[in-house]
């Protein structure tokens, strides 16, 4: 009976340990995850930033600002899924007005809601932009050639991955000044009915894809594609160079990557819960009261074991 109980306990313990280890060490496959080394992750991007001596701050639970000067800081938001609270919007507005740089890369996410809350007169159209001629491999991978404005560079090519376009709203008395710095080619069109073809109501013309909205001493840069920096796109064209050019133009030294606005899967929630339990356990372990008790326990166990073994050896000695 005892052996059965022991077996059941052993099985349960090993199963729990295996489950915990599987949760903790299972590969991350979520879009824009920094630990994700698959095609849709940001592991390469983070490595490149580190290589180029940018200090990177990743906000996993809450959007926070570093202690570095705001004029040398950039907040990078890629394809957000969850809306931003009014406090976060206020934080972002203060950040921009104090000279910070916000880069929002989004196509079909909740970026529009953020733009609306920030009062920026730019919207993401939310329909795919296709290019019949100036593309890389497929028409929904349009190539953007040349940048104007502050980041003037004629020989830069950005390869996008199913982007949308930007729409600049005509609003008077707005605190933001918007400048378009990159547009698609003359052969691009918005595929409103998603059939992948140019139809009668769809017009071929250059559409804005990157815009800078200035306010106070800072700026918000809006890019109509969230995927130009993912692992499979970062080496295409001059995608990383484009971001580096933006950062160097505005003297950015610290990049804050906002990872707190994505929906979390069950596995991620479990992982977070396990990590929080580990942290709580760490608090208990660090508590002096428990440390003393643990030390006494270890010493007592060792003494009792040594004593028992010695006795047994003596008893059984031939």
């Amino acid at each position: 009976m005892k052996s059965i109980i022991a077996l059941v306990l052993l099985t349960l313990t090993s199963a729990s340990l295996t489950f915990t280890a599987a949760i903790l060490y299972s590969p991350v496959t979520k879009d824009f995850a920094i630990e994700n080394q698959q095609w849709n992750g940001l592991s390469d991007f983070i490595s490149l930033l580190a290589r180029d001596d940018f200090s990177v701050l990743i906000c996993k639970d809450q959007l926070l600002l570093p202690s570095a000067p705001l004029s040398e800081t950039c907040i990078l938001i890629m394809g957000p899924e969850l809306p931003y609270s009014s406090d976060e919007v206020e934080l972002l507005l203060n950040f921009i007005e104090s000279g910070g740089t916000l880069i929002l890369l989004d196509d079909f996410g909740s970026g529009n809601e953020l733009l609306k809350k920030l009062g920026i007169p730019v919207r993401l159209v939310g329909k795919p932009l296709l290019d019949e001629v100036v593309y890389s491999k497929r028409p929904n991978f349009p190539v953007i050639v040349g940048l104007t404005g502050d980041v003037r560079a004629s020989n830069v090519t950005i390869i996008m991955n199913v982007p949308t376009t930007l729409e600049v709203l005509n609003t008077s008395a707005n605190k933001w000044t918007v400048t378009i710095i990159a547009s698609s080619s003359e052969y691009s069109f918005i595929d409103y009915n998603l059939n992948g073809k140019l139809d009668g109501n769809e017009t071929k013309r250059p559409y804005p894809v990157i815009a800078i909205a200035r306010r106070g001493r800072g700026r918000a840069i809006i890019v109509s594609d969230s995927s130009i920096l993912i692992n499979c796109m970062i080496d295409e064209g001059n995608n990383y160079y484009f971001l580096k050019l933006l950062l160097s133009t505005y003297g950015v030294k610290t990049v804050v990557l906002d990872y707190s606005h994505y929906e979390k899967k069950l596995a991620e929630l479990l992982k977070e819960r396990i990590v929080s339990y580990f942290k709580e356990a760490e608090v208990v372990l660090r508590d002096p009261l428990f440390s003393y008790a643990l030390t006494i326990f270890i010493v007592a166990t060792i003494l009792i074991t040594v004593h028992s073994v010695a006795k047994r050896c003596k008893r059984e000695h031939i």
Partner: protein
Amino acid sequence: MRTHHLALLLLLIICTVVISYSSTDIMRHMNYDEVEEARVPILPLFKLIFERLLIDEEGIIRNSTLVLSLLKELPIPTVLKTRLDALVNYVSLFNETCSSIEHQLNLMQGLIKEGNLSQARKLRSDIDSLFDNATVTLIKVRIILNDIQRTYPIVKSVVEPRINYLEERLDKLRNRYNKILHEIEILSQEYQVRINTLINATLFPSKAYPGDNVSVYGFLFTENGEPLSSRLTVELRGFFKVITRTNKHGYFRLTFRAPSIPDEYYVIVKYVPENLTYKASYALMKLRVMPFKTSIKIVNYTKALYPQERIIIEGVIESNSPKVKGFIILTMDGITSEVTIRTSSFKAYLTLPYYIKEGLHELKVSFIPKVPFLEPSQSNVTILVMNPPHGLKLKVTHPALLISTNSITVHVTPTSELESKLMIIVKLVTMRGRTISSRAVIIKANQEHHLTLTYSPNIISNYYRIEVLAIPQNPLIKYTRYIGTLYIINFQSLLMTLLTLLAIVLLATRALATRVTRKPPEKAVTIRELAKMEAMLEEVEKLPEELHEPRTLRKTLNLLEAFLARVLNIRFSLSMTHREFSEEVKKKNPLIGSLLTSMVLIFERAYYGLKKLKVLEILFLRSAYEKILKLLKVRE
């Protein structure tokens, strides 16, 4: 059923034979583009478009309209047609941009010839922008071409050299542009050969108050000292720019009013020659507009007061300016207050904090102007802060030991001679001074109050400080403070500690219990105590018949030893081996002892040496056992 199956089989055979006879050779797979390519001779078409019609060896585009119309008519794949159409359009756009660059460069050279270098320089931004556009267009041409070459690699040899001509054309234009820029630089240096001119100008006064009249006067000479009669531009940067003339002696004079905002200004007198004989010259003078001086005259103020009372200061700002606007800032021991004033007289207040020490304090009164033409000023007064006449006693009780799941309840009883409301601030602070939790309430004096302070349950077990601060609202009562300590135990740690201690106790108890059970009897039982021996004897008599089993043998030996220990009054301990016990038995009864030793030897060989017992050995063991029992005279 069988007939049906047979008919089906026959039909299947017939079908197979018919299909095998009618089958033809399988064609090689061709996609749509290849089929179209097979119909249209792609290479000659590209040769015709790019070599004969579109791009010449100078990189100049011709017949683009003709090529576009030709493409419309040609039966080539739609995808190729779209790309070629775009390619021709981009190439035409490139051509137009290059032509614009050429036009701008020609314009630039014309301006240089006229000696208008500044205008020539102004064209730079336009030309740079055109170069950017041409580069972007060329990159787009390359992207389309690479895409076409992926499908039709054969066309590379035809199109590539022609696109290179375009690049060469752009490079040539860029070289020409660089040469022109270089030429401008050289001409700028040559400009210095002309006759130098000199403006000798004076500004009076060079330091003025806002609105004062300021004159600028002087002479214009050549480097040989000859006076020049010409036009001069006098400019006060950001305010005005006027043209004046020098007389035949080269003299000029201009009077203007000093700006209303105090600052440092620059007055520039500039001579721009009307012909190519003289060089331009200018004179730069600094004008300093000073703000009106101000001073604070204090008319009345509170000279003595208790902490928490308000200082009132009345005064006047003295200045030459008719308009006084700004702030009065009162500062005393790091406490400040601010009041806005619109006229020269003011009344300002500063409430003293409860903690200010009694004695003389210096109060700083500062005037910070809101208008730029006034200067800030400052004045000091001495204030006496008196000790409040009434004291406050604070009785505080709180637990000395607490588990982190419970909040801290503090009982506060402030007692005072005067009735007053009090603000009570309760703080939980680490021994290093970091505040963990705090709470503020307003209560009445001479009454007991219970205040509950919550904090995070994840707090680390340690000593903490409880600080209670009572600030009376009546300034006649002095504030008081209480500082106490308490030990907070983290609940989780406590639980884990208790579990750990329980484990220690269990382990220790087990170890001790084993020792107690194996403890030898304090008194040995004599042979005459037969009644007590009865039970044991019964067990001994039930010896197993099969002694060849080592376990049975061990049990037998152990039982026998226990029995002998009782009967022969031998002290039996756990540390004693079988041999040692045999020796002890030998001392009491040598015969039984030697029999037991022989039994032990056989046991050791079988139990530890893993030897199988022989029949003789088993017989010996039985007989030895019987003998020992007989010798003890226990058994008949």
